[in-house]
Protein backbone atom coordinates (compact mmCIF):
# COMPACT_ATOMS: atom_id res chain seq x y z
CA UNK A 1 0.00 0.00 0.00
CA UNK A 2 1.56 3.25 -1.14
CA UNK A 3 0.94 6.32 0.98
CA UNK A 4 -0.21 9.20 -1.18
CA UNK A 5 0.29 12.80 -0.01
CA UNK A 6 -3.36 13.00 0.95
CA UNK A 7 -3.25 9.78 2.92
CA UNK A 8 -0.15 11.01 4.68
CA UNK A 9 -1.65 14.37 5.54
CA UNK A 10 -5.05 13.49 6.97
CA UNK A 11 -3.98 12.04 10.36
CA UNK A 12 -1.99 15.21 10.96
CA UNK A 13 -4.88 17.45 9.99
CA UNK A 14 -7.17 15.42 12.22
CA UNK A 15 -4.74 15.72 15.12
CA UNK A 16 -4.39 19.42 14.49
CA UNK A 17 -8.15 19.86 14.54
CA UNK A 18 -8.49 17.91 17.78
CA UNK A 19 -5.75 19.93 19.43
CA UNK A 20 -7.39 23.15 18.24
CA UNK A 21 -10.57 22.46 20.19
CA UNK A 22 -8.93 20.69 23.13
CA UNK A 23 -8.32 23.77 25.36
CA UNK A 24 -11.85 25.00 24.71
CA UNK A 25 -13.27 22.03 26.59
CA UNK A 26 -12.20 23.69 29.82
CA UNK A 27 -12.54 27.31 30.84
CA UNK A 28 -10.21 26.76 33.77
CA UNK A 29 -7.08 28.85 33.14
CA UNK A 30 -4.95 26.48 35.14
CA UNK A 31 -5.96 23.50 33.03
CA UNK A 32 -5.09 25.45 29.91
CA UNK A 33 -1.74 26.29 31.44
CA UNK A 34 -1.24 22.60 32.20
CA UNK A 35 -2.05 21.67 28.60
CA UNK A 36 0.62 24.11 27.46
CA UNK A 37 3.17 22.66 29.88
CA UNK A 38 2.29 19.17 28.68
CA UNK A 39 2.94 20.16 25.08
CA UNK A 40 6.28 21.80 25.95
CA UNK A 41 7.24 18.59 27.73
CA UNK A 42 6.14 16.62 24.67
CA UNK A 43 8.64 18.66 22.63
CA UNK A 44 11.36 17.88 25.19
CA UNK A 45 10.49 14.18 25.34
CA UNK A 46 10.19 13.72 21.60
CA UNK A 47 13.59 15.38 21.19
CA UNK A 48 15.19 13.25 23.88
CA UNK A 49 13.74 10.16 22.25
CA UNK A 50 15.67 10.92 19.08
CA UNK A 51 19.07 10.88 20.70
CA UNK A 52 18.31 8.32 23.39
CA UNK A 53 15.64 6.15 21.84
CA UNK A 54 16.56 6.12 18.17
CA UNK A 55 20.32 6.57 18.43
CA UNK A 56 20.78 4.86 21.80
CA UNK A 57 22.99 7.56 23.32
CA UNK A 58 22.43 7.66 27.06
CA UNK A 59 22.48 11.39 27.72
CA UNK A 60 21.53 13.09 30.96
CA UNK A 61 22.32 16.50 29.53
CA UNK A 62 19.06 17.20 27.76
CA UNK A 63 17.60 19.42 30.47
CA UNK A 64 20.70 21.64 30.38
CA UNK A 65 20.09 22.21 26.66
CA UNK A 66 16.59 23.39 27.49
CA UNK A 67 18.16 25.72 30.06
CA UNK A 68 20.53 27.10 27.45
CA UNK A 69 17.60 27.66 25.11
CA UNK A 70 15.56 29.34 27.84
CA UNK A 71 18.34 31.66 29.03
CA UNK A 72 19.44 32.55 25.49
CA UNK A 73 15.91 33.44 24.53
CA UNK A 74 15.41 35.38 27.76
CA UNK A 75 18.62 37.39 27.40
CA UNK A 76 18.05 38.13 23.72
CA UNK A 77 14.54 39.46 24.25
CA UNK A 78 14.93 41.10 27.67
CA UNK A 79 18.32 42.75 27.09
CA UNK A 80 18.44 43.32 23.34
CA UNK A 81 14.76 43.69 22.50
CA UNK A 82 14.97 40.81 20.06
CA UNK A 83 11.42 39.70 19.20
CA UNK A 84 10.40 36.19 20.21
CA UNK A 85 10.27 35.08 16.59
CA UNK A 86 14.03 35.62 16.32
CA UNK A 87 14.86 34.71 19.91
CA UNK A 88 13.32 31.26 19.38
CA UNK A 89 15.63 30.29 16.49
CA UNK A 90 18.49 31.93 18.42
CA UNK A 91 17.73 29.71 21.38
CA UNK A 92 17.57 26.64 19.15
CA UNK A 93 20.91 27.55 17.59
CA UNK A 94 22.59 28.03 20.98
CA UNK A 95 21.15 24.77 22.30
CA UNK A 96 22.16 23.04 19.06
CA UNK A 97 25.77 24.13 19.44
CA UNK A 98 25.78 23.04 23.09
CA UNK A 99 24.16 19.75 22.07
CA UNK A 100 26.97 19.01 19.66
CA UNK A 101 29.46 19.70 22.45
CA UNK A 102 27.60 17.42 24.84
CA UNK A 103 27.65 14.82 22.08
CA UNK A 104 31.41 14.80 21.61
CA UNK A 105 32.07 12.55 24.65
CA UNK A 106 29.87 9.95 22.92
CA UNK A 107 32.75 9.23 20.51
CA UNK A 108 34.61 7.47 23.27
CA UNK A 109 32.06 6.79 26.00
CA UNK A 110 29.03 4.56 26.18
CA UNK A 111 26.21 3.78 28.56
CA UNK A 112 26.74 4.77 32.18
CA UNK A 113 30.03 6.52 31.42
CA UNK A 114 28.39 8.71 28.80
CA UNK A 115 25.57 9.41 31.25
CA UNK A 116 28.10 10.56 33.83
CA UNK A 117 29.96 12.79 31.38
CA UNK A 118 26.77 14.43 30.12
CA UNK A 119 25.50 14.81 33.68
CA UNK A 120 28.70 16.64 34.57
CA UNK A 121 28.32 19.00 31.64
CA UNK A 122 24.66 19.58 32.41
CA UNK A 123 25.26 20.38 36.06
CA UNK A 124 28.01 22.84 35.17
CA UNK A 125 25.57 24.63 32.86
CA UNK A 126 23.00 24.91 35.63
CA UNK A 127 25.58 26.05 38.17
CA UNK A 128 26.83 28.63 35.67
CA UNK A 129 23.36 30.14 35.29
CA UNK A 130 22.72 30.06 39.05
CA UNK A 131 25.99 31.88 39.73
CA UNK A 132 25.95 34.52 36.98
CA UNK A 133 24.29 37.83 37.80
CA UNK A 134 23.73 38.59 34.14
CA UNK A 135 21.29 35.67 34.06
CA UNK A 136 19.69 36.52 37.38
CA UNK A 137 21.84 34.07 39.31
CA UNK A 138 19.95 32.22 42.03
CA UNK A 139 17.17 34.82 42.09
CA UNK A 140 16.05 33.79 38.62
CA UNK A 141 15.56 35.63 35.35
CA UNK A 142 12.34 37.66 35.29
CA UNK A 143 10.52 40.15 33.10
CA UNK A 144 10.98 38.10 29.96
CA UNK A 145 8.65 39.71 27.43
CA UNK A 146 5.91 37.58 25.86
CA UNK A 147 5.79 36.95 22.11
CA UNK A 148 3.99 39.61 20.13
CA UNK A 149 2.02 39.40 16.90
CA UNK A 150 1.88 43.00 15.76
CA UNK A 151 0.63 44.82 18.82
CA UNK A 152 -1.01 41.75 20.33
CA UNK A 153 0.85 40.07 23.20
CA UNK A 154 0.59 36.30 23.48
CA UNK A 155 0.34 36.30 27.24
CA UNK A 156 -2.87 34.46 28.09
CA UNK A 157 -2.79 30.75 28.72
CA UNK A 158 -5.10 30.14 25.82
CA UNK A 159 -3.16 32.18 23.27
CA UNK A 160 0.12 30.67 24.42
CA UNK A 161 -1.35 27.22 23.96
CA UNK A 162 -2.05 28.11 20.34
CA UNK A 163 1.58 29.18 19.97
CA UNK A 164 2.98 25.98 21.46
CA UNK A 165 0.58 23.49 19.91
CA UNK A 166 1.62 23.84 16.24
CA UNK A 167 5.28 23.71 17.27
CA UNK A 168 4.70 20.52 19.27
CA UNK A 169 2.78 18.97 16.40
CA UNK A 170 5.55 19.94 13.97
CA UNK A 171 8.10 18.42 16.35
CA UNK A 172 6.16 15.16 16.40
CA UNK A 173 5.85 15.20 12.61
CA UNK A 174 9.59 15.79 12.16
CA UNK A 175 10.48 12.96 14.48
CA UNK A 176 8.30 10.57 12.46
CA UNK A 177 9.85 11.82 9.24
CA UNK A 178 13.32 11.25 10.69
CA UNK A 179 12.53 7.80 12.03
CA UNK A 180 11.17 6.65 8.66
CA UNK A 181 14.09 7.98 6.64
CA UNK A 182 17.64 6.88 6.07
CA UNK A 183 18.67 9.13 8.97
CA UNK A 184 16.41 7.28 11.40
CA UNK A 185 17.67 3.92 10.16
CA UNK A 186 21.24 5.08 10.56
CA UNK A 187 20.49 6.17 14.13
CA UNK A 188 18.97 2.79 14.94
CA UNK A 189 21.83 0.95 13.27
CA UNK A 190 24.42 2.76 15.36
CA UNK A 191 22.33 2.08 18.45
CA UNK A 192 22.19 -1.65 17.74
CA UNK A 193 25.73 -2.20 16.52
CA UNK A 194 28.07 0.73 15.81
CA UNK A 195 30.67 -1.52 14.23
CA UNK A 196 28.23 -3.15 11.83
CA UNK A 197 26.85 0.32 11.08
CA UNK A 198 30.27 1.69 10.19
CA UNK A 199 31.19 -1.17 7.86
CA UNK A 200 27.81 -0.59 6.22
CA UNK A 201 29.08 2.87 5.24
CA UNK A 202 27.57 4.90 8.09
CA UNK A 203 29.79 7.62 9.52
CA UNK A 204 29.01 6.75 13.12
CA UNK A 205 30.47 9.93 14.65
CA UNK A 206 28.64 12.18 12.22
CA UNK A 207 25.31 10.50 12.93
CA UNK A 208 25.85 10.55 16.68
CA UNK A 209 26.43 14.30 16.50
CA UNK A 210 23.44 14.71 14.20
CA UNK A 211 21.26 12.94 16.78
CA UNK A 212 22.58 15.16 19.55
CA UNK A 213 22.11 18.23 17.35
CA UNK A 214 18.52 17.46 16.34
CA UNK A 215 17.47 16.61 19.87
CA UNK A 216 19.17 19.79 21.11
CA UNK A 217 17.12 21.85 18.65
CA UNK A 218 13.98 20.40 20.26
CA UNK A 219 15.34 21.21 23.72
CA UNK A 220 16.21 24.77 22.68
CA UNK A 221 12.72 25.29 21.28
CA UNK A 222 11.11 23.94 24.46
CA UNK A 223 13.40 26.09 26.61
CA UNK A 224 12.52 29.24 24.70
CA UNK A 225 8.82 28.44 25.06
CA UNK A 226 9.27 27.98 28.81
CA UNK A 227 11.01 31.35 29.08
CA UNK A 228 8.37 33.44 27.34
CA UNK A 229 5.43 31.71 28.98
CA UNK A 230 3.65 34.16 31.25
CA UNK A 231 4.80 35.41 33.77
CA UNK A 232 8.11 35.33 31.87
CA UNK A 233 10.26 33.93 34.64
CA UNK A 234 12.87 31.15 34.66
CA UNK A 235 14.97 29.82 37.48
CA UNK A 236 17.96 27.44 37.66
CA UNK A 237 15.79 25.18 39.81
CA UNK A 238 13.69 24.44 36.72
CA UNK A 239 16.69 22.63 35.28
CA UNK A 240 17.93 20.33 38.01
CA UNK A 241 18.53 16.61 38.09
CA UNK A 242 14.94 16.18 39.30
CA UNK A 243 13.68 17.72 36.06
CA UNK A 244 16.06 15.52 34.10
CA UNK A 245 14.84 12.38 35.87
CA UNK A 246 11.26 13.48 35.21
CA UNK A 247 12.09 13.87 31.56
CA UNK A 248 13.82 10.49 31.46
CA UNK A 249 10.77 8.96 33.08
CA UNK A 250 8.56 10.24 30.24
CA UNK A 251 10.74 8.54 27.67
CA UNK A 252 11.36 5.35 29.63
CA UNK A 253 7.74 4.93 30.68
CA UNK A 254 6.65 5.60 27.12
CA UNK A 255 9.03 2.97 25.77
CA UNK A 256 12.44 4.12 24.64
CA UNK A 257 12.50 4.81 20.92
CA UNK A 258 8.72 4.72 20.58
CA UNK A 259 7.38 8.10 19.45
CA UNK A 260 3.75 7.70 20.57
CA UNK A 261 4.86 6.05 23.79
CA UNK A 262 7.09 9.01 24.55
CA UNK A 263 4.24 11.41 23.93
CA UNK A 264 1.88 9.49 26.19
CA UNK A 265 4.69 9.30 28.75
CA UNK A 266 5.10 13.07 28.61
CA UNK A 267 1.39 13.62 29.14
CA UNK A 268 1.11 11.19 32.05
CA UNK A 269 4.27 12.25 33.82
CA UNK A 270 3.50 15.96 33.50
CA UNK A 271 0.11 15.41 35.10
CA UNK A 272 1.50 13.23 37.88
CA UNK A 273 4.36 15.69 38.41
CA UNK A 274 1.86 18.46 38.77
CA UNK A 275 -0.41 16.52 41.14
CA UNK A 276 2.55 15.66 43.39
CA UNK A 277 4.02 19.16 43.38
CA UNK A 278 3.43 19.47 47.14
CA UNK A 279 5.69 16.49 47.74
CA UNK A 280 8.64 17.90 45.80
CA UNK A 281 11.15 16.32 48.17
CA UNK A 282 9.91 12.80 47.32
CA UNK A 283 9.55 13.22 43.57
CA UNK A 284 13.10 12.26 42.66
CA UNK A 285 12.93 9.08 44.70
CA UNK A 286 9.49 8.11 43.40
CA UNK A 287 10.22 8.88 39.75
CA UNK A 288 13.59 7.15 39.98
CA UNK A 289 11.88 4.10 41.40
CA UNK A 290 9.25 4.08 38.65
CA UNK A 291 12.07 4.22 36.07
CA UNK A 292 13.79 1.22 37.66
CA UNK A 293 10.51 -0.71 37.86
CA UNK A 294 9.62 0.13 34.26
CA UNK A 295 13.03 -0.87 32.93
CA UNK A 296 12.90 -4.11 34.92
CA UNK A 297 9.32 -5.24 34.41
CA UNK A 298 8.10 -3.36 31.34
CA UNK A 299 11.25 -2.60 29.32
CA UNK A 300 9.25 -1.66 26.25
CA UNK A 301 7.06 0.70 28.21
CA UNK A 302 3.68 1.94 27.10
CA UNK A 303 4.88 1.86 23.49
CA UNK A 304 5.43 -1.88 23.84
CA UNK A 305 1.82 -2.33 24.93
CA UNK A 306 0.58 -0.26 21.98
CA UNK A 307 2.71 -2.29 19.58
CA UNK A 308 1.42 -5.55 21.03
CA UNK A 309 -2.16 -4.45 20.60
CA UNK A 310 -1.57 -3.47 16.99
CA UNK A 311 0.52 -6.55 16.23
CA UNK A 312 -2.22 -8.74 17.66
CA UNK A 313 -4.83 -7.03 15.53
CA UNK A 314 -2.70 -7.42 12.42
CA UNK A 315 -1.98 -11.02 13.32
CA UNK A 316 -5.68 -11.79 13.80
CA UNK A 317 -6.50 -10.11 10.49
CA UNK A 318 -3.85 -12.14 8.72
CA UNK A 319 -5.03 -15.36 10.36
CA UNK A 320 -8.59 -14.62 9.32
CA UNK A 321 -7.50 -13.88 5.77
CA UNK A 322 -5.50 -17.07 5.44
CA UNK A 323 -8.31 -19.09 7.00
CA UNK A 324 -10.71 -17.68 4.43
CA UNK A 325 -8.27 -18.48 1.67
CA UNK A 326 -7.96 -22.09 2.76
CA UNK A 327 -11.74 -22.34 3.13
CA UNK A 328 -12.18 -21.10 -0.40
CA UNK A 329 -9.63 -23.61 -1.72
Amino acid at each position, binding site marked *: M*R*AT*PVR*RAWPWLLGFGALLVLPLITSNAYHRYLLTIILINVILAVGLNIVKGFAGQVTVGHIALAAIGAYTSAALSAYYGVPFWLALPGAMLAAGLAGVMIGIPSFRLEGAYLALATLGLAESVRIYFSATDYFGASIGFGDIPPPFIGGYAINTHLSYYYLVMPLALAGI*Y*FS*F*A*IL*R*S*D*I*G*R*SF*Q*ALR*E*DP*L*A*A*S*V*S*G*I*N*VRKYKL*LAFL*ISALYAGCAGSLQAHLSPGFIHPNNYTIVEMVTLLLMVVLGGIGHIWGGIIGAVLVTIVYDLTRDYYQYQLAIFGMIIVLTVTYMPKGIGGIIDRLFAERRFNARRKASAEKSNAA
Partner: protein
Amino acid sequence: MLLEVKGFSKQFGGLAAISNVDFSVKKGEIRGLIGPNGSGKSTLFNLISGVYTPDKGRISLDGEDISGLEPHEIARRGIARTFQLLRLFGQMTVLENLLVGHHAHIRYSAPAAIFGLPNVWAEETRVKDEMMDLLSFIGLADYAGMPAGELSGGQRRLLTIGRAIAMRPKILLLDEPAAGLSPVNVDNLLRLIVSLKERYGLTLVVIEHILKVVMDTCETVTVLEHGEKIAEGPPAKIKDDPRVVEAYLGKEMSDAEVQAFLKAS
Protein backbone atom coordinates in the same frame (compact mmCIF):
# COMPACT_ATOMS: atom_id res chain seq x y z
CA MET B 1 44.42 -6.25 -9.28
CA LEU B 2 41.20 -5.13 -7.64
CA LEU B 3 42.37 -5.53 -4.07
CA GLU B 4 46.02 -5.31 -3.20
CA VAL B 5 47.32 -5.79 0.33
CA LYS B 6 51.07 -5.40 0.88
CA GLY B 7 52.88 -6.48 4.03
CA PHE B 8 50.00 -6.28 6.52
CA SER B 9 51.04 -6.97 10.12
CA LYS B 10 48.97 -6.81 13.29
CA GLN B 11 49.99 -7.63 16.85
CA PHE B 12 47.68 -8.13 19.82
CA GLY B 13 49.84 -7.78 22.91
CA GLY B 14 52.65 -10.16 22.16
CA LEU B 15 50.67 -12.22 19.66
CA ALA B 16 51.31 -11.68 15.96
CA ALA B 17 47.79 -12.23 14.60
CA ILE B 18 48.89 -11.29 11.08
CA SER B 19 52.52 -11.04 10.02
CA ASN B 20 53.70 -9.56 6.78
CA VAL B 21 50.85 -10.85 4.65
CA ASP B 22 50.51 -9.95 0.97
CA PHE B 23 47.06 -10.58 -0.44
CA SER B 24 45.92 -9.66 -3.94
CA VAL B 25 42.58 -10.43 -5.52
CA LYS B 26 41.74 -10.12 -9.22
CA LYS B 27 38.50 -8.58 -10.40
CA GLY B 28 35.78 -11.21 -10.79
CA GLU B 29 37.61 -13.85 -8.80
CA ILE B 30 36.22 -16.07 -6.03
CA ARG B 31 39.06 -16.39 -3.57
CA GLY B 32 39.09 -18.90 -0.75
CA LEU B 33 40.78 -18.03 2.53
CA ILE B 34 41.45 -20.98 4.81
CA GLY B 35 43.50 -21.82 7.85
CA PRO B 36 43.14 -23.46 11.25
CA ASN B 37 41.33 -21.75 14.14
CA GLY B 38 43.09 -18.62 15.26
CA SER B 39 45.28 -18.42 12.16
CA GLY B 40 44.29 -14.80 11.50
CA LYS B 41 41.59 -15.05 8.81
CA SER B 42 39.05 -12.82 10.51
CA THR B 43 41.82 -10.46 11.56
CA LEU B 44 42.80 -10.06 7.92
CA PHE B 45 39.17 -9.13 7.09
CA ASN B 46 39.14 -6.67 9.98
CA LEU B 47 42.31 -5.06 8.65
CA ILE B 48 41.00 -4.86 5.08
CA SER B 49 37.67 -3.35 6.15
CA GLY B 50 39.36 -0.82 8.44
CA VAL B 51 37.91 -2.23 11.65
CA TYR B 52 41.52 -2.66 12.85
CA THR B 53 44.41 -0.49 11.72
CA PRO B 54 47.47 -2.49 10.71
CA ASP B 55 50.78 -1.95 12.48
CA LYS B 56 52.45 -2.14 9.10
CA GLY B 57 51.46 -2.49 5.48
CA ARG B 58 49.40 -0.78 2.82
CA ILE B 59 46.18 -1.53 0.99
CA SER B 60 44.72 -0.33 -2.28
CA LEU B 61 41.42 -0.90 -4.03
CA ASP B 62 41.12 -0.51 -7.78
CA GLY B 63 44.44 1.34 -7.81
CA GLU B 64 43.47 3.80 -5.07
CA ASP B 65 45.46 3.75 -1.85
CA ILE B 66 42.91 3.33 0.95
CA SER B 67 45.37 2.75 3.80
CA GLY B 68 44.35 4.37 7.07
CA LEU B 69 40.79 5.15 6.03
CA GLU B 70 37.95 4.61 8.45
CA PRO B 71 35.55 1.67 8.06
CA HIS B 72 32.72 3.76 6.62
CA GLU B 73 35.06 5.36 4.08
CA ILE B 74 36.38 1.98 3.03
CA ALA B 75 32.81 0.68 2.79
CA ARG B 76 31.85 3.58 0.53
CA ARG B 77 34.78 2.85 -1.75
CA GLY B 78 33.42 -0.62 -2.40
CA ILE B 79 34.53 -3.14 0.21
CA ALA B 80 31.69 -4.97 1.93
CA ARG B 81 32.00 -7.72 4.50
CA THR B 82 30.03 -10.05 6.69
CA PHE B 83 30.89 -11.05 10.24
CA GLN B 84 31.50 -14.49 11.65
CA LEU B 85 29.11 -13.54 14.48
CA LEU B 86 26.62 -11.94 12.04
CA ARG B 87 26.11 -8.60 13.82
CA LEU B 88 22.69 -7.97 12.32
CA PHE B 89 20.53 -5.09 13.53
CA GLY B 90 18.26 -7.47 15.41
CA GLN B 91 15.48 -5.06 16.37
CA MET B 92 15.22 -3.59 12.88
CA THR B 93 13.20 -5.36 10.23
CA VAL B 94 14.71 -7.58 7.57
CA LEU B 95 14.05 -4.92 4.93
CA GLU B 96 15.52 -2.18 7.11
CA ASN B 97 18.72 -4.19 7.51
CA LEU B 98 19.16 -4.12 3.74
CA LEU B 99 18.27 -0.44 3.60
CA VAL B 100 21.02 0.29 6.12
CA GLY B 101 23.40 -1.57 3.84
CA HIS B 102 22.20 0.61 0.97
CA HIS B 103 22.81 3.78 3.02
CA ALA B 104 25.57 5.21 0.82
CA HIS B 105 23.32 5.08 -2.27
CA ILE B 106 20.28 6.83 -0.86
CA ARG B 107 20.00 10.24 -2.41
CA TYR B 108 18.27 12.90 -0.38
CA SER B 109 19.58 15.53 1.99
CA ALA B 110 19.23 15.46 5.77
CA PRO B 111 16.92 18.52 5.81
CA ALA B 112 14.69 16.92 3.17
CA ALA B 113 14.46 13.81 5.35
CA ILE B 114 13.62 15.80 8.49
CA PHE B 115 10.89 17.76 6.71
CA GLY B 116 9.60 14.59 5.04
CA LEU B 117 9.61 16.15 1.57
CA PRO B 118 8.05 14.33 -1.40
CA ASN B 119 11.43 13.60 -3.00
CA VAL B 120 12.22 11.57 0.13
CA TRP B 121 9.13 9.41 -0.32
CA ALA B 122 9.96 8.90 -3.98
CA GLU B 123 13.51 7.86 -3.21
CA GLU B 124 12.34 5.64 -0.33
CA THR B 125 9.92 3.91 -2.67
CA ARG B 126 12.65 3.39 -5.24
CA VAL B 127 15.19 1.94 -2.80
CA LYS B 128 12.60 -0.19 -1.02
CA ASP B 129 11.58 -1.73 -4.35
CA GLU B 130 15.22 -2.37 -5.14
CA MET B 131 15.85 -3.97 -1.75
CA MET B 132 12.69 -6.09 -2.04
CA ASP B 133 14.13 -7.41 -5.30
CA LEU B 134 17.29 -8.37 -3.52
CA LEU B 135 15.26 -9.93 -0.70
CA SER B 136 13.33 -12.06 -3.19
CA PHE B 137 16.58 -13.11 -4.77
CA ILE B 138 17.92 -14.40 -1.45
CA GLY B 139 14.52 -15.87 -0.59
CA LEU B 140 13.65 -13.66 2.36
CA ALA B 141 10.95 -11.49 0.79
CA ASP B 142 8.25 -13.09 2.95
CA TYR B 143 10.04 -11.90 6.07
CA ALA B 144 10.59 -8.29 4.98
CA GLY B 145 8.64 -6.81 7.88
CA MET B 146 9.91 -9.14 10.57
CA PRO B 147 12.56 -8.07 13.09
CA ALA B 148 15.85 -9.57 11.92
CA GLY B 149 16.43 -11.05 15.37
CA GLU B 150 13.46 -13.37 14.90
CA LEU B 151 14.85 -15.11 11.81
CA SER B 152 16.31 -18.60 12.02
CA GLY B 153 20.07 -19.03 12.09
CA GLY B 154 20.39 -19.87 8.41
CA GLN B 155 18.14 -16.99 7.40
CA ARG B 156 20.17 -14.61 9.52
CA ARG B 157 23.32 -15.68 7.75
CA LEU B 158 21.64 -15.07 4.40
CA LEU B 159 20.52 -11.67 5.55
CA THR B 160 24.05 -10.60 6.47
CA ILE B 161 25.10 -11.49 2.94
CA GLY B 162 22.13 -9.53 1.61
CA ARG B 163 23.01 -6.53 3.74
CA ALA B 164 26.55 -6.56 2.35
CA ILE B 165 25.33 -6.90 -1.24
CA ALA B 166 22.91 -4.02 -0.69
CA MET B 167 26.05 -1.89 -0.42
CA ARG B 168 26.71 -2.56 -4.12
CA PRO B 169 30.33 -3.35 -3.33
CA LYS B 170 33.15 -4.05 -5.74
CA ILE B 171 34.44 -6.77 -3.49
CA LEU B 172 32.62 -8.81 -0.87
CA LEU B 173 34.38 -10.51 2.05
CA LEU B 174 32.39 -13.40 3.53
CA ASP B 175 33.48 -14.67 6.94
CA GLU B 176 32.36 -18.30 7.24
CA PRO B 177 29.03 -17.91 5.42
CA ALA B 178 28.23 -21.61 5.72
CA ALA B 179 28.98 -22.05 9.42
CA GLY B 180 26.28 -23.97 11.20
CA LEU B 181 24.33 -24.84 8.07
CA SER B 182 23.21 -28.37 7.24
CA PRO B 183 24.95 -29.98 4.20
CA VAL B 184 21.89 -29.40 2.00
CA ASN B 185 21.78 -25.74 2.98
CA VAL B 186 25.50 -25.42 2.39
CA ASP B 187 24.98 -26.56 -1.19
CA ASN B 188 22.10 -24.13 -1.64
CA LEU B 189 24.15 -21.32 -0.18
CA LEU B 190 27.02 -22.06 -2.55
CA ARG B 191 24.74 -21.93 -5.53
CA LEU B 192 23.27 -18.69 -4.25
CA ILE B 193 26.67 -17.12 -3.69
CA VAL B 194 27.78 -17.97 -7.21
CA SER B 195 24.58 -16.58 -8.70
CA LEU B 196 24.84 -13.43 -6.60
CA LYS B 197 28.35 -12.97 -7.89
CA GLU B 198 27.12 -13.22 -11.48
CA ARG B 199 24.11 -11.01 -10.96
CA TYR B 200 25.89 -8.23 -9.14
CA GLY B 201 29.29 -8.52 -10.82
CA LEU B 202 31.04 -9.19 -7.54
CA THR B 203 34.51 -10.22 -6.58
CA LEU B 204 34.47 -12.51 -3.56
CA VAL B 205 36.77 -13.58 -0.76
CA VAL B 206 35.34 -16.45 1.26
CA ILE B 207 36.65 -17.66 4.60
CA GLU B 208 35.49 -21.19 5.14
CA HIS B 209 36.14 -24.05 7.49
CA ILE B 210 34.19 -26.50 5.38
CA LEU B 211 36.94 -27.20 2.92
CA LYS B 212 34.60 -28.69 0.37
CA VAL B 213 33.06 -25.27 -0.04
CA VAL B 214 36.36 -23.66 -0.83
CA MET B 215 37.65 -26.49 -2.97
CA ASP B 216 34.51 -26.61 -5.11
CA THR B 217 33.92 -22.91 -5.52
CA CYS B 218 37.22 -21.08 -5.58
CA GLU B 219 39.72 -20.69 -8.37
CA THR B 220 42.47 -19.72 -5.98
CA VAL B 221 42.92 -20.47 -2.30
CA THR B 222 45.08 -18.64 0.22
CA VAL B 223 46.15 -20.50 3.34
CA LEU B 224 47.04 -18.79 6.61
CA GLU B 225 48.71 -20.34 9.62
CA HIS B 226 49.77 -18.48 12.76
CA GLY B 227 49.18 -15.22 10.94
CA GLU B 228 51.44 -16.07 8.03
CA LYS B 229 50.54 -16.91 4.48
CA ILE B 230 51.86 -20.42 3.95
CA ALA B 231 50.40 -21.26 0.56
CA GLU B 232 48.41 -19.83 -2.33
CA GLY B 233 47.20 -21.43 -5.54
CA PRO B 234 44.53 -23.53 -7.19
CA PRO B 235 42.66 -25.87 -4.82
CA ALA B 236 44.04 -29.02 -6.40
CA LYS B 237 47.61 -27.94 -5.70
CA ILE B 238 46.81 -26.55 -2.24
CA LYS B 239 45.41 -29.75 -0.86
CA ASP B 240 48.61 -31.65 -1.68
CA ASP B 241 50.90 -28.94 -0.31
CA PRO B 242 52.80 -30.55 2.58
CA ARG B 243 52.70 -27.36 4.71
CA VAL B 244 48.95 -27.11 4.32
CA VAL B 245 48.44 -30.76 5.15
CA GLU B 246 50.64 -30.36 8.19
CA ALA B 247 48.83 -27.23 9.32
CA TYR B 248 45.52 -29.00 9.03
CA LEU B 249 46.61 -32.32 10.44
CA GLY B 250 48.50 -30.60 13.23
CA LYS B 251 47.25 -30.44 16.76
CA GLU B 252 44.85 -27.54 16.18
CA MET B 253 42.57 -29.64 14.07
CA SER B 254 39.40 -31.03 15.55
CA ASP B 255 37.93 -34.39 14.52
CA ALA B 256 35.27 -32.64 12.51
CA GLU B 257 37.87 -30.70 10.60
CA VAL B 258 39.85 -33.86 9.85
CA GLN B 259 36.69 -35.46 8.51
CA ALA B 260 35.89 -32.40 6.46
CA PHE B 261 39.40 -32.23 5.11
CA LEU B 262 39.52 -35.92 4.20
CA LYS B 263 36.17 -35.64 2.47
CA ALA B 264 37.45 -32.72 0.45
CA SER B 265 40.64 -34.43 -0.67
